[in-house]
C-alpha cells in the first residue's frame, strides 16, 4: 500500500530536560524557546532555541515558583513572573548590571495574567483589568509606562508574528478585543464577537482560550475558533470557524472547516494548511482555505483528504545513553501530555521534546484522485516543485494515465501560475527601468516560488522523458505536446523553440509528415531559424519540407542570406538572383558564390548571364566591369574567356 501518512514530526526535535517535580518547563512562542527551570532557577535554567546554537544556560536565585519566563528578542532581557503582582527583569546585555529589577502592575488590585515581549525592550502586561505597555530601560534598570487601557480580561492570547494581542472580555468571554503593537505604539483594533453555539444561563465564561488560536494563513491573520457541537442528526460535528482579522477594518467570519466528528481537538498551521488533530481517533486532517468548493463569501471546507494519523515516530536515542543494541523507542502519538503551539509546534513536556509538524506531499498525492484539485493544492505548497513534476509525469504514463481533458486542466493551472510570475517579473523590470529615471524607490523583485513550473522544467523533467517512452502511442504524445502548447498560447506565453523541436522530432520519428505540414501551415510551430534549418534537413525524406523552410525563412525577413544559400544549393541561380534583387541586397552578394553555382549547372548561357550581371554591377559600383582581386573570381574570368572568348568581356565604358 502506498504511503498515506501525510503529516510527520520533524526528524531533529529540540530536546530538553523533561518536566518533573524539580524541573518546570516553559515555552515561549515568540522566540520558540523552551525553558527548563530547575528548582526555581537555583540549580540552573536551560534555554533551548529552535537551533542547537541558541542554547543558553544560567542560574538565578530561587525567589519562589516561576509562573512565566521569557526572553526579549535577541535574548537581551529576561522577564520572570513569580507573583500575580509583579514581573522581575534581568539584563543579559554585556556590561550591564545582572541584578534583578522589578515592575509591579500599575492598576491597583489587579493581578497579572501574563506578559508578552513585543520588541527587545518593549513589554506588555496583561492583567485581569486591562493591559499595560512598558518600555524597559535596562541601563536604568527600570520600566516606563507608555500606554495602558482598562478593560476586564478573562484571558489573553498573543500572536508574535503579527504582534497582535487578543483579549477575551465580557462575562461570556466571547467578545474579543485585539491590540496591535509596533515600535512603541499600541493600537486598538475593532473588537468582534465569536458566535457561540449555545448561550449558557445564567451567563458564565463560555469561551475558553483552549478553543481559540491565532495564526497567519496565506499572509493573513486569522482567529481560529474550535466550535464544539453536540453531535445530532442535522449536526455532523464540530467545526473550526476562521475569522479574518485585518489590520484595518472589521473582523469577518470567512471560513468554516467541517470536522465531521466530535471530541478533543488541537490546531496547527503548517505550510498555510490548517491541521486539526483529533485525539480520540488519533488522526489529523488538513484543510486548505484556498481550495474553494463554493463561491459564496463564507466558504465551507471539507478536509482536503481523509483523516490519517501522523506518521509513526521513533524517538532517536542520542548521547551516551544510545547503546548500539537498543532499538529506537516508538513514540506515543496524540498523547494527552502533548501541548500544541502555533503555528506548527508540538511539545511533549513529559518526554522533553519539541517537534515541528511537517506536511508530506507525496501521501497527499496518493490520496487525492482529482488531479485538478490536487494541482490547486500542490501549487500552494512550499516545496512543491518536484512533486508537481512527478505528478505530471505519472499523469502521462503508466496505468494511472489521465485523460486529455484532465491533462489540459493541469497544464492550464500550471501555466496560470507561470504567467502570473512572468507578468510580475515584467512589471518589475519596467518599474525598475522607469523608476531609475525618476528616482523612485526600487520595487520589490517578485519571488519565484517553487510553484512556478516553466517550460524548461516541463521539458527537462516531463516532456522530453515522456516522448522517449516506447510504450506510449505517438498519437497520445502528440496530443499532449499540442495540449501544452495550446495552454501556453492561451496564457500568451511565448513558446520556446525546443518545444517545437520536440513536436517536430516526434512527428518525423513517426513519419507523420502531413500532420507536421498542417501545423506549420497554421503557424502553430512558430518561425525560427533553428526550426527552418531542421526542416531543410528533412527535405530528403519529405520533399515539401523545402518549401516550408523557405517560407519560414522568408517570413523571418532576417534570413535573406540563408535563402540565397538554399537556392544556390539547389542550383536555382536565377531564382536566387531575382530574390536578392527583389529585397534590394544585390549590391552586397558574393559574385564568387553565384558564379560557382552557375558554373556547376553546366549551362553556359546561364553562366554568361550571371557573369554579365556582375560585370554590370562592377561597372555601376566602381566604374569598371572588372572584378577586384578580393572577389576571387579569376578562375571564373578565365572560364568565361575560354568559353566565350576574350572579346566577350564587357568593355569599360568611358564615363
Amino acid at each position, binding site marked *: 500500500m502506498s504511503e498515506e501518512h501525510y503529516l510527520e514530526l520533524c526528524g531533529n526535535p529540540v530536546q530538553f530536560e523533561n518536566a518533573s517535580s524539580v524541573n518546570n518547563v516553559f515555552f515561549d512562542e515568540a522566540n520558540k524557546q523552551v525553558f527548563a527551570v530547575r528548582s526555581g532557577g537555583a540549580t540552573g535554567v536551560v534555554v533551548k532555541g529552535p537551533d542547537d546554537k541558541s542554547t543558553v544556560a544560567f542560574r538565578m536565585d530561587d525567589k519562589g515558583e516561576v509562573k512565566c519566563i521569557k526572553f526579549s528578542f535577541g535574548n537581551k532581557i529576561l522577564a520572570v513572573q513569580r507573583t500575580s503582582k509583579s514581573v522581575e527583569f534581568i539584563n543579559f546585555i554585556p556590561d550591564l548590571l545582572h541584578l534583578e529589577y522589578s515592575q509591579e502592575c500599575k492598576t491597583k488590585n489587579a493581578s497579572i495574567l501574563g506578559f508578552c515581549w513585543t520588541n527587545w525592550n518593549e513589554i506588555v502586561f496583561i492583567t485581569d483589568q486591562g493591559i499595560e505597555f512598558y518600555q524597559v530601560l535596562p541601563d536604568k534598570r527600570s520600566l516606563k509606562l507608555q500606554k495602558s487601557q482598562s478593560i476586564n480580561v478573562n484571558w489573553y492570547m498573543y500572536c508574535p508574528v503579527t504582534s497582535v494581542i487578543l483579549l477575551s472580555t465580557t462575562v461570556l468571554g466571547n467578545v474579543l478585543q485585539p491590540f496591535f503593537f509596533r515600535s512603541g505604539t499600541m493600537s486598538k483594533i475593532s473588537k468582534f464577537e465569536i458566535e457561540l453555539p449555545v448561550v449558557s444561563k445564567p451567563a458564565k465564561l463560555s469561551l475558553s482560550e483552549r478553543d481559540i488560536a491565532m495564526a497567519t494563513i496565506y499572509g493573513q491573520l486569522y482567529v481560529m475558533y474550535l466550535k464544539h457541537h453536540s453531535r445530532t442528526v442535522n449536526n455532523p460535528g464540530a467545526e473550526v470557524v476562521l475569522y479574518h482579522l485585518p489590520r484595518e477594518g472589521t473582523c469577518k467570519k470567512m471560513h468554516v472547516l467541517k470536522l465531521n466528528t466530535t471530541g478533543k481537538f488541537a490546531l496547527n498551521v503548517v505550510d498555510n494548511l490548517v491541521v486539526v488533530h483529533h485525539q480520540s481517533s488519533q488522526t489529523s486532517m488538513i484543510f486548505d482555505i484556498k481550495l474553494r468548493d463554493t463561491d459564496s463569501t463564507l466558504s465551507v471546507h471539507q478536509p482536503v483528504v481523509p483523516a490519517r494519523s501522523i506518521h509513526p515516530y521513533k524517538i532517536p536515542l542520542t548521547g551516551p545513553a544510545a547503546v548500539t543494541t537498543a532499538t529506537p523507542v516508538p513514540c506515543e502519538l496524540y498523547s494527552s501530555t502533548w501541548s500544541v503551539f502555533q503555528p506548527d509546534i508540538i511539545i511533549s513536556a513529559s518526554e522533553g521534546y519539541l517537534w515541528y509538524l511537517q506536511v508530506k506531499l507525496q501521501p497527499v498525492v496518493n490520496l487525492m484522485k482529482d488531479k485538478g484539485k490536487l494541482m490547486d493544492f500542490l501549487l500552494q505548497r512550499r516545496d512543491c516543485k518536484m512533486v508537481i513534476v512527478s505528478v505530471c509525469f505519472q499523469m502521462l504514463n503508466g496505468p494511472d494515465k489521465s485523460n*486529455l481533458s484532465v491533462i*489540459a486542466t493541469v497544464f492550464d493551472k500550471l501555466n496560470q501560475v507561470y504567467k502570473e510570475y512572468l507578468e510580475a517579473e515584467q512589471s518589475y523590470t519596467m518599474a525598475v527601468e522607469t523608476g531609475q529615471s525618476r528616482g523612485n524607490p526600487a520595487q520589490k523583485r517578485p519571488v519565484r516560488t517553487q510553484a512556478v513550473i516553466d517550460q524548461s522544467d516541463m521539458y527537462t523533467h516531463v516532456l522530453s522523458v515522456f516522448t522517449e517512452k516506447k510504450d506510449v502511442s505517438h498519437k497520445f504524445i502528440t496530443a499532449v505536446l499540442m495540449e501544452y502548447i495550446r495552454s501556453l498560447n492561451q496564457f500568451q506565453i511565448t513558446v520556446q523553440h525546443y518545444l517545437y523541436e520536440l513536436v517536430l522530432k516526434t512527428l518525423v520519428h513517426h513519419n507523420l509528415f502531413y500532420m507536421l505540414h498542417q501545423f506549420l501551415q*497554421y503557424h*502553430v510551430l512558430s518561425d525560427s531559424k533553428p526550426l527552418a534549418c531542421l526542416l531543410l534537413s528533412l527535405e530528403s525524406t519529405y520533399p515539401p519540407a523545402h*518549401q516550408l523552410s523557405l*517560407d519560414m525563412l522568408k517570413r523571418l525577413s532576417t534570413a535573406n542570406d540563408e535563402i540565397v544559400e538554399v537556392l544556390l544549393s539547389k542550383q536555382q541561380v536565377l531564382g536566387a538572383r*531575382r530574390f536578392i534583387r527583389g529585397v534590394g541586397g544585390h549590391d552586397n552578394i558574393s559574385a564568387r558564390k553565384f558564379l560557382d553555382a552557375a558554373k556547376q549547372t553546366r549551362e553556359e548561357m546561364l553562366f554568361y548571364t550571371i557573369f554579365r550581371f556582375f560585370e554590370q554591377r562592377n561597372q555601376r559600383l566602381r566604374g569598371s566591369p572588372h572584378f577586384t582581386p578580393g572577389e576571387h573570381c579569376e578562375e571564373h574570368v578565365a572560364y568565361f574567356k575560354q568559353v566565350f572568348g576574350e572579346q566577350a568581356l564587357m568593355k569599360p565604358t568611358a564615363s
Partner: protein
Amino acid sequence: MATGAQEKQYPPSLLNFFVYNPKFGPKEGEEEKKILFYHPNEVEKNEKIRNVGLCEAIIQFTRTFCPTKPAKSLHTQKNRQFFCEPEENFWMVMVVRNPMIEKNNKDGKPVVEYQEEEILDSVYSSVLQQCYNMYKLFNGTFARTMEAGGVDLLKQRLEKFFYRYLQTLHLQSCDLLDIFSGISFFPLDKMTYLKIQSFVNRMEESLNLVKYTAFLYNDQLIWSGLEQDDMRILYKYLTTSLFPRHSEPELAGRDSPMRLEMAGNLLHYGRFLTGPSNLKDPEAKFRFPKIFVNTENTDEELHLIVYKAMSAAVCFMINTSVELTREFCEQLDSLVGPQLTLLASDICEQYSINRRISGPEKEPQFKFIYFNHMNLAEKSTIHMRKTASVSLTSIHPELMKILGDINSDFSRVDDDEEIIVKAMTDYWIVGKKSDQRELYVILNQKNANLIEVNEEVKKLCATQFNNIFFLD
C-alpha cells in the same frame, strides 16, 4: 450582330463512359466479357463491343511508339475520348462530345459547327481520374472487389456507383480547378487552431474507436488526420456532394436547435449528416457510408461519420470491424454536440475579429486562382461557392480556357516560369509558377501595358502572399 440571336450553343456533354478489362474476353466472340460497365446502358451490344474494341486498338497502336505511355486522349471532330488505366489492365474511357454552335445557313437550315479546340485534355483527364478516385473511395480497388466477389460483384458495384455518379458530372463547368483538385483551407489564427486540435484529440480519446478525424469549417478544411491523397478525394466528396445536399434544409431554417425539448440535455446544434437523421427515431438505422483509405495501411475500410454543428463539420472515421450502435451514436451526439457548437461559435467570432483587424484592403480586388502542389491548397476569387449542381465562375469561359492553356505549359517544364497573355477585349492574364506554386491573375484594365500589368501582380503578391516564398 444579326446572327447572334439565331445561334444556339451546346456545351460539352458526356457521350459514353465505360470500364473494361481486355484480359477478360481475349477470345473472339467473348468480347462482351471485357465490358464491366457501359454508359449509356441502352446502347446496342455490338456498338458497345465496337467502341471498346476501337479504344483497345488505339491504345495498343500507340503503345508501339511508347510502351509505357500509351495514348491519353483521342481528338475527333465530334468528340474527344479520354483513356485511363487506373489499375493494371482495367481501363476507363470517357467520351465527351465537343461543344457545338448551331447556326442557320443562308437557306435558314440549321448547321452544326463543332468547336474541337475548346476543351482541354488536362481538364477532362483529371475529371476521369477523379471518377476513379471517387469510386475507389467508396468501393476500394477493382482488384480488391475481384478478390472478394469476382467479376459479377465488380460489375454490380460499378453499376451501382456510376449510375448515380455520372449524373452529377457537370462537364460544361469543369475547368482549371478540376486539374488541381485542391483543398480550400480555412484561414484561422493559431489559438483557435490549437483549440480545434485539442478538441479533435480529446474526442478521439473519448470515443476511442475513432481512428481518424477531419475538421472543416464553412466547407473549408482545417484539420485532416488522413493522408493528403485520401483527404483530397474525401474533401471533394464532402464539398461537392454531401454538404450541398444538406445545405438546403439549413437555409430553410430547419437547423434550429432540435434538442430544446430534451430535458437535461445541453442545448446544441449538432446533427449527423451521415447515418441517422434523427437519433430519437426508434426505427433509426445506424449505418454509415464506408470508405477506403490508404493512410496507415492500404485499402483500410472505415465507417464515415460526418457530424455537423452550425458551420463546423467533423468527420470521424472508424474501422469497419467495429459495429456502430445506437449507444455509440448517442454518446457521440451528447459528447461532440455541445462542444462542437461552442467551438463553431468560437471560430465564427474569431474569424470575424481577424477579418476586421486585417481590414478591407486585405480583401482581394483581383480575380485570381492560386494553387500549391505541396499542400494542395487552392484559393480562387473567380469561383462562386460551389453547389451540388454547378460551379459558377464569374468570368468568361474563354478566359478560363486560357488559364488552362497556361497550366498545360507550366506542367511541361520544371522550372519557374511566368507567362503574360493579352486576351481579347481588355483582359490581361498572368500566370506565375514558383517552385511548387501556381498563380493565375486576370486583370481588366483599359490600355494597360506590360509594365503596368507586372506592377499590379507584384502588388497582389505583396498583399496576398507576403508570408510565403514566392519569387517575383
